[in-house]
């Protein structure tokens, strides 16, 4: 199905080597073939070893990035570089610039405003490291973005090489200028938005709302579980204390204390499953939903550019021939952008479904495992209380 979309499209997505020039369909088909044969993943990236880097002016964290690849266009098969968050931001910016209507993977936030005092808190760094790892791997898995030149430079260049590379290309100011124009024209783009993109936008709006709620709910569950865990830790030992004054109940009381302790451990394990799998997965899609809104805007902007030229032509403002030529180019650009987005949208939705499905399935699995562990603990305790009469009673209650 994925193949079909690309083959039907008359013009392909903007290639990374020369941002403004579309490449031939043929080269894109080759890229698709690579993607379909998922066993032939040829780019492996890991992000690890966060380290503090201190200069006289500032302190920041760098992350080690190891890339292993069998691709011809890479000079070597293994690379190791260090990057800081700013470098990731740069990369994201370049990707957005080159592929305005592709769904670029989201970066973890700059700062987490709530509940975070220090940038360099251990949990924060660990969470960020994992998110950055995800970010790079998502790019690697993307049929188009994986071949982006800036991406390659990011993964392979030494520090000074990267700095000098960064200085090339449109400067900050010109990008700022673009943004101002963009805001002004995106309104027009919304008015003439085709039906399918209206639907897409509607989806994005509702999805964004819901995923944000789910993010909040999931964080809240974690918080409540943590507090429950803390109380349970105090609860168990009281039974041991009690057993000191009850000769005949020592075994029972100590048994209960031990069960509570074991359940505590199970709770801890379940909580860490939550914080390592579900929470980051849901949060990534919160960031994705923001991303998507940006993509919609950029699509609308591109359309708005075309619409304004068409309007100019209609009201005979300016050189008719020039306008017609420009309109021609812009029509191509709009069609390209729309197709790119459509295709990437389908891909994104598919991924989203899989990711959400697996995140929640795993969460359910963790919970089942948690209850099974606790059940086993209490049942084994019950069998040690061998008073037959009481066991009969308890069976009735069950």
């Amino acid at each position, binding site marked *: 199905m994925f193949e079909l979309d690309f083959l039907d499209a008359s013009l392909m997505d903007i290639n990374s080597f020369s941002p403004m020039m579309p490449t031939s369909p043929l080269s894109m088909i080759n890229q698709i073939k690579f993607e379909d044969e998922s066993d032939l993943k040829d780019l492996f990236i890991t992000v690890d070893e966060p380290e503090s880097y201190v200069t006289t002016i500032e302190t920041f964290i760098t992350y080690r990035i190891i890339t292993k690849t069998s691709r011809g266009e890479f000079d070597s098969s293994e690379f190791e570089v260090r990057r800081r968050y700013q470098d990731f931001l740069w990369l994201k910016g370049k990707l957005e610039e080159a592929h305005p209507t592709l769904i670029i993977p989201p970066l973890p936030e700059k700062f987490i405003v709530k509940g975070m005092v220090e940038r360099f808190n251990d949990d924060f760094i660990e969470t960020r490291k994992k998110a950055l790892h995800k970010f790079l791997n998502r790019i690697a898995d993307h049929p188009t973005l994986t071949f982006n030149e800036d991406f390659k430079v990011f993964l392979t260049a030494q520090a000074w090489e990267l700095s000098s590379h960064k200085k090339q290309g449109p400067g900050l100011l010109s990008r700022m200028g673009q943004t101002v124009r963009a805001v002004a024209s995106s309104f027009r783009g919304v008015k003439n938005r085709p039906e399918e993109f209206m639907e897409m936008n*509607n*989806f994005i709006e*509702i*999805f964004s709302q*819901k995923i944000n*709620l*789910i993010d909040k*709910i999931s964080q*809240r*569950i974690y918080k*409540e*579980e943590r*507090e*429950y865990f803390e*109380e*349970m830790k*105090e*609860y168990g030992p*009281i*039974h041991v*204390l*009690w057993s000191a*004054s*009850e000769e*005949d*109940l020592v075994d*029972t*009381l100590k048994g*209960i204390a031990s*069960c509570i302790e074991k*359940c505590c451990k199970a709770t801890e394990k379940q909580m860490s499953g939550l914080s390592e799998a579900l929470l980051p997965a849901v949060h990534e899609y919160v960031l994705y939903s923001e991303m998507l809104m940006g993509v919609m805007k950029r699509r609308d902007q591109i359309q708005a550019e075309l619409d304004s030229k068409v309007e100019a032509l209609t009201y005979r403002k300016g050189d008719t021939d020039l306008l017609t030529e420009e309109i021609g180019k812009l029509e191509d650009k709009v069609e390209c952008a729309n197709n790119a987005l459509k295709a990437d949208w389908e891909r994104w939705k598919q991924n989203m*479904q899989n990711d*959400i*499905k697996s995140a*929640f*399935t795993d969460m*359910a*699995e963790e*919970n*089942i495992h*948690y*209850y*099974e562990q*606790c*059940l086993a603990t*209490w*049942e084994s*305790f*019950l069998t040690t*209380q061998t*008073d037959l009469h*009481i066991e009969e*009673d*308890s069976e009735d*209650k*069950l």
Partner: protein
Amino acid sequence: MEQASSDLEGQLQPAPLEPLGYADGELEAAVGEKAEGAQEESSGLDTMTENNFWLKKIEISVSEAEKRTGRNAVNMQETYTAYLIETRSVEHADGQSVLTDSLWRRYSEFELLRNYLLVCYPHIVVPPLPEKRAEFVWHKLSADNMDPDFVERRRIGLENFLLRVASHPTLCRDKIFYLFLTQEGNWKETVNETGFQLKADSRLKALNATFRVKNPDKRFTELKHYSDELQSVISHLLRVRARVADRLYGVYKVHGNYGRVFSEWSAIEKEMGDGLQSAGHHMDVYASSIDDILEDEEHYADQLKEYLFYAEALRAVCRKHELMQYDLEMAVQDLASKKQQCEELATGTVRTFSLKGMTTKLFGQEAPEQREARIKVLEEQISEGEQQLKSKNLEGREFVKNAWADIERFKEQKNHDLKEALISYAVMQISMCKKGIQVWTNAKECFSKM
């Protein structure tokens, strides 16, 4: 007319403590034949203890609670809850039960009954009443005495109290208890007419004795210590349990939010929609399951609370012993001092400092006739004192014997009940785990079908 004082004395004597129909989970108790249609003014307790032959069994239940308004002692409007007590007699042969008595009582009447029992049976560990005010509440529970859940739990607690009394070998025979179950009007007056309040030991006297007693029975000292520990540890347990319940409630209820959001989200999803929707339903089920779970736990907490309150009953018995022991010690001391006085007067020697000795020194010895008279008085007092000491000693020993027998009975009951309660706690946890497994298995299936 009730022969109150003699009845009370009778109770302190070692009555034949035959075990009668213990409450064995079946909640029955044996009461004398006179339970059925007996005249209120029947002869005293002696008749019940000696001559009766337990033919029938009775069932007691506190079956309803009702809000009422009335006028209190100072003629002010007040709202209170009344509880319906039903007594049924069970025919031995076919197990059919017939309603024999049915009346309404309020909490204050239960309190009066208990106070009466405390005074008249100081050697018995008298079962406690359920708490007057809701304590150890967590956020979902109300601290309001009029709250229906509190009233319900109190109803069960009051029933439990009556069953405990009815299954106690000594207490079940008490006339006032019997009247509590059968005589609605005038019961309060009847209790007060026994004059039991006069028999009550003053708090001050008891406190004084506790501090000054020299040789209490070691077992009672240990028992006092035990009851303090029991009270402290159960309070702590209940407090933390309430906090744990609160937290668990939070965890479950927040999951309920997933239900709503999944449902709304499913509206925009084509393939994922059904899975999301049905998973959301299971989240709702999960969230609402905590209500029943915690309600069961509340009953468990009530079982522990009963023993928390029993600690005070234990202490009451210990206090009585200390009081009696102190009384005895004072009597011994008094007798010794009188004997000494007597001796001094007889022999004319003054060994210890006394006012009499001083005045004798100062004003000269008194006349022999006066001395003779005084010696005679003292000798009479000594003789009386020796009699009293004998009976006090006997009383004291009887008390210790009977109290200790009841304490042993109590210990067995406590061990049995607490063990059962703790095991029921484990059973509750198992049930909660099983429910959890089921819900999450269902949810997982829905998720995997998305």
